[in-house]
Each structure stands twice: as structure tokens, then as C-alpha cells.
């Protein structure tokens, strides 16, 4: 039970850090790094799909990043 609220604690910690930011966001001309492929939130969709299918079929949790349904009879 030590880890019961681990994720929630980390999420709240993140929220506190965000709340401490004096300003968020950038101007359009400051998006050079954000435009990098590695910064795309939906990058490498096939890697994600293959991983998600593996975890969907072996674990009780799925989704979070996107819809959780699996369309698979494996679980």
C-alpha cells in the first residue's frame, strides 16, 4: 500500500511546479525546439500502437494517452 497514491502524488507535485511558473507559453517565433519531431505528443504512432496492444493484452489498465478500447479479444 506504500505506492497506493504514488501517481496521484506525482501528478499533484507536477501541478505545484506548474502553478509556480510565472508565465507559460511562447511566441510563434520561439517554437523552433517545439517543432522538433521528438517534441510531438503523438510521435511514433506505430510504436505506441504496438506497445499499447501488448500492454492491453497483458495488464488490467489501458488508454490514458488516447482512448482505452482495444478492439481485441485478448482481454
Amino acid at each position, binding site marked *: 500500500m506504500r505506492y497506493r497514491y504514488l*501517481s496521484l502524488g*506525482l501528478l499533484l507535485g*507536477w501541478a505545484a511546479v506548474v502553478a509556480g511558473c510565472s508565465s507559460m507559453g511562447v511566441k510563434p517565433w520561439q517554437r523552433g525546439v517545439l517543432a522538433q519531431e521528438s517534441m510531438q505528443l503523438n510521435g511514433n504512432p506505430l510504436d505506441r500502437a504496438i506497445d499499447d*496492444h501488448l500492454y492491453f493484452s497483458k495488464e488490467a489498465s489501458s488508454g490514458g494517452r488516447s482512448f482505452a*478500447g482495444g478492439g481485441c479479444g485478448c482481454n
Partner: protein
Amino acid sequence: MRLQLKDPEARKVLPLRRQLMAASCALLSAAAVHAEDSSDQKSDPGVLSKLLNGVSLDTALAYYHEDGRVQAVEPVVDVNKAFANGQSLNLDATFDVLSGASPNGALTSRQPQTFASPSGTSLTGSKHSYIVNPGQYPVDRNYSDVRGAAGANWNVPLTRLTSAELGAKISGEDDFISATLNASVEHDFNEKNTTLSFGISNEFDRLSPIGGTPVAGSDYSLFEKTGNKTKNGVEALFGVTQVMTQNWIAELNFSADRFKGYLNDPYKIASVLDPVGNTTGYVYESRPEQRTRKSVFLENRTASDQFSAALSLRYMQDNWQIRSDTVELRPRWTLSDRNQYLEPTVRWYRQTAAYFYTPWLSSTVQVPEFQASDERLGAFHALTYGIKYAHKVGEQQDTQGSELSVRVEYYQQTFRQPEAPLSLQGLDLLPPLKAVLVQVGWRF
């Protein structure tokens, strides 16, 4: 959800890339090309070139191997077409071929155990039965399945800051058909630094297990089977994406889903043990007919010149009293020539057991209304270690080339061991699951 951060000019296609696509399409449609006469072929390049403008193709072949259990081969293709009016269409197709040995849910025993294959109607006939030796983990070694799935997503800009997406997916196996419809809308504001999104999804599943659907909780030896079953699910997902700084972006999602219907694995049974630990029989699992899950997901991405990292956290809980935590870290190092990168992965996952999970049942008490020994509903933790190497070809400033990649992952589940009855002490009742995934990808 997605923030459009890339300059549209960056999507210009290199001649080399277009030629690669044309070559691939020609290979894929070889039969059709052969049927055409030579005059038609002369007019093809122009039409093909127009069709391929704005098209990107992502392909992968994955091989998955569990130690002593299931193996699978999975080719995947994803095609994206960006239209001049801002709309985009995404099509994907997946094919799975699975074979090997699948755990049937029964417990390892000191005595030989006889089980029927799904199509069997008796435990005494040899044709549709299999024997598990003493001390061996019970698996059905004749497991095999083939799955095909196809999906489509259509993204339409409604205004300069708002877009909608409609999607559909269909998936079929020998004993399972699933159809999913989803719709979502997202809106940018705050100079496109913030994006709010909301989506809903509906899933309709039909199960037609080989040999019939077992009556939940029934005695395994009686072979009480019924006809096809259904389960349906609905899910809502709300998300916020925020650009934090010039090199930090974050995404926070809340989701909830509810599934109703036949939620059992029709091939899973549970052992019934006497007080000493001898197996006296088996019953089919019986899960509740409704499940509601809620999850929170957070991802942070940060990057500098040659280094970037993605850290994601997820917390999930459901009305089966399962709670899970997931932490995943994916750093990426771009190598000195900028055409190659290495991306290691570390993922830690932990879940608690469903309230009705039990490794075995007792012969001295009545079988509870809800019970399942499926280890995926038990308490365990899992670790994934992996690394990806990618090499970009033909990429220049403001243009995309193609990318070849190889990815290897090792996945291991470790279960919480139950306190064994006397005769089963010393046996590995819940052996760890160890699996390797190897994936080759080509994107162009």
C-alpha cells in the same frame, strides 16, 4: 490531441521520397498494374504523383515472443494524406498471427491434470484434450489466432483554431469482432499555447468462442455452453495540452470508460482445491457484467539541441478495485551527424488485484458469485526495458526524408505469490511472464 507546431513548408516532399512511395505503391498494387496496357502506364506517374502529394507512410513489422508461451508476428501499415484545404485522412491496417501456449487459469498441481481444448466436449477423449504433467504450469499448447484490424480517422478544421476528428475501427478474429466509432473536437487558444480537447468513443464487441460460450461460474466438467455474447463500451476523454516554455510541453488527460456485457475470458478456468491442496475440479471464471474505469494521464516532453525526453505518468482505478500506476521514461539522444538517434525506454507498471481475483477456489466453501484466477486481474508489477535506433535517409533542411528503425524491448511481469496449501508448497504457482519484442520500422 495534437498541437500543430510544424511549419507546413516542412512537409514538402523530396523527389527521392516520392519515388520511394511510388515504388512501394506500385509493388502493393502489382496485380492492378499488370492488368493495364502500356498506354495507361505512361499516364500513371502524373496521377500517382498528385495522389502521393502530402502522403506519408509508416510501416512496421513486430515479432513478439514470450518465454514458453505465446509468440506473435504483427505487420502494421499507417497511411496519412494531408489535403490542401487542411483536412487529413489517416488509414491504418494491422494483421496479427499468434501461436503458442496460453495459460488456462488452472493452478500447477502435484498430480497430472487433464483439460479439454475449447472445442472439446469431454475430458476423456484424447482428440480434444491435453495433459499437463505434475509441477508444470497449465497452458493450452495448441493456442492460435489470427487478427485483422483496420481503422480510419478524418480530421477537419472547423475554424482557424478549432478542428474535429471522426474515426472508425473494425477488428476481427476467429472468435471475436469489434467495431469502434469515435469523435473528438479540439480548440487552440492563448496564441496556440493551450489546446483543449474532448472526445467520446463507442465500442461494440461480439464474442463467439470456439465450442460455445461457457456459462459463467459453471463446473468445467459439465461443458455448459451457450451461444454468442456481446459487450459494449463507452468512453469520454478530456485533455489539456500546454506549451510551458520554448523547450517544454505538457499534456494532461482525464478519461472514464464503462463496459457492459460479457466481460469474461471464455477460455479461463479456476482450480478448486481441497484443504491440503489437491485439485478436486475446475470452474469457469465469472466476472461482474459491468466495469467502470477512470484514469489520469500526464506527459511532459522537453528537448535541447541533441537531447530530448518524454516522461509520462498514469493513474487508473476501476470499480473492480484495481488500481494501477504507470511511469514511462523515453530519453532520446541525437547522434553527432543528426541523421541517427538512440531512444532507450524504461517503463514501470504496478497494479492491485481485482476484489474477486483468487488464484484458486476452496472446495470447502461455496463458489462465490464473482471469481477469476486470470493473472491479469491479480496483483503484479511489470518492467519494460527497451532501446530504439533510427537512421534518417534523405532528410535536409525543411524537408522530411525516410526513417529506418529497429526497436527491441524486454518485458517482465512479476506476480505476488500466494500462500500455498501444504501439498503445493515449493511449486512456482505464478511464474513470471518474460517477453521480447523486436520491431523493424520504415517511415517515408
